[in-house]
């Protein structure tokens, strides 16, 4: 299989996306620290909100993309869908870790506790464990193709389970500040804060997009490398799916045909 060389054109597009990401994030950080007013009750600690909320959004967006990739893989068995799912899972794990850390940093001064067993926190923590399980399934499967299938199973069940876990924990107990942006009566937030949040959301979503493009490229190259390594174990003519690096004796039957 030949390596598909990324054209200069797509490279330029990706670079453009990267520059745009940097620009929007710079504006977002400036707005978060300078433009947005200091919260009356929470003080400066509230500013972490502009990072925390985008992280949370991306954690769940990434899980959604894992679901899409997993269902796609189940449907079509395309390596491309698997790459989409596993790239998004790695980024999702990163953002889930960050949302847990930023949340704890905020919780300490405001709630006077690093952690509360509240629905959204608990669900995010479980999501973090689901991502770990997702990587472990792949690592322990011992075979790339099998790893992809098992990971798809976990991607589907895990993503569908997340809202169920959220609901069941909500019924169990709840303490998180009520949703303020997606409130039914419209966002209950000063315009300057809302604007800052939206810019930050856009910036971090662009960052996710940029990282996804780069990550899927890396995974594509990795897949190709693995395939080449596999192919190099056999004589070029012998087409086989057997993975054993056994010393294959030259096949007589194939050569006699020509």
């Amino acid at each position, binding site marked *: 299989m030949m390596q598909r060389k990324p054209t200069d054109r797509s490279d330029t597009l990706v670079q453009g996306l990267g520059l745009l990401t940097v620009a929007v994030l710079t504006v977002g950080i400036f707005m978060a620290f300078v433009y947005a007013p200091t919260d009356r009750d929470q003080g400066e600690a509230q500013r972490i909100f502009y990072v925390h909320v985008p992280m949370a959004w991306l954690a769940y967006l990434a899980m959604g993309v894992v679901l899409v990739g997993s269902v796609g893989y189940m449907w079509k068995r395309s390596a491309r869908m698997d790459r989409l799912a596993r790239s998004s899972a790695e980024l999702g794990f990163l953002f889930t870790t960050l949302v847990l850390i930023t949340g704890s940093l905020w919780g300490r001064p405001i709630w006077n506790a690093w952690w509360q067993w509240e629905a959204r926190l608990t669900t995010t923590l479980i999501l973090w464990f*689901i991502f770990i399980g997702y990587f472990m399934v792949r690592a322990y499967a011992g075979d790339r193709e099998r790893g992809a299938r098992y990971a798809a199973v976990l991607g589907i069940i895990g993503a569908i389970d997340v809202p169920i876990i959220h609901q069941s924990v909500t019924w169990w107990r709840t303490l998180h500040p009520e949703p303020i942006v997606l409130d039914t009566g419209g966002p209950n937030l000063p315009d300057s804060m809302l604007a800052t949040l939206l810019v930050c959301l856009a910036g971090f979503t662009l960052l996710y997009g940029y990282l996804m493009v780069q990550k899927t490229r890396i995974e594509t190259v990795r897949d190709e490398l693995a395939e080449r390594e596999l192919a190099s174990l056999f004589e070029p003519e012998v087409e086989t799916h057997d993975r054993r690096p056994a010393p294959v004796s030259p096949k007589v039957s194939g050569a006699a045909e020509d």
Partner: protein
Amino acid sequence: MRRVWALVWKDLLVEFRGREFLGAMVVFALITIVTLNFAFDLSRGDRAAPGAGGLWIAFLFAGMLGLGRSLAVERDRGTLEGLTLCPVDAGTIFLGKFIANALFIVIVQAVSLPVFYGLYNLPSLNPMVLLIAVTGAVGFAGLGTLFSAVAASSRAREILMPLLLFPLAIPLVIGTVRATTLIFESNSADAWPWFNLLAAFDVIFVTLSYVVFDLVLEE
């Protein structure tokens, strides 16, 4: 459907003849229930919540012990190939394994609940508790059978199984423990919504596992 029952019957027969894990599951559940007494002092105070929690931890662990091996033994004995060569689809194999596993958990519960009643004098033989127990067993068996198959052909299968099953089974843990706690507090009326919820979880988890089982078994 007759094929599903044939598979269930096969598992029960293998277990009856070989006595491979049902005995171990029951003893494990009992020893967990006994150890529970030292983890939480259940002789006084508010015992409903720790009692219900401990009981379900015992079922969850014992169930995992059995479920974890359910497909692993098939692979080790080389009978999994025989099973996949049967003229039935993956879904049928799933249903057979799932029903057999659910039965195993129910048997463990049938032994543990009277013992729990005897040791702690909590109303664990209330018919409502039995209903919750069976409903919970169905959900655990559904997810457990799926991940048993995933773990069976992986390395480190004993470790992988709880890592996959526990986070995903949390809605079931919450539902069963809350319902059982309410019944132990003689508040059975409030336990009904939890029962309905558990029944809904069962439907979702079993259906999902049935649908994706094909992905696991294909070799």
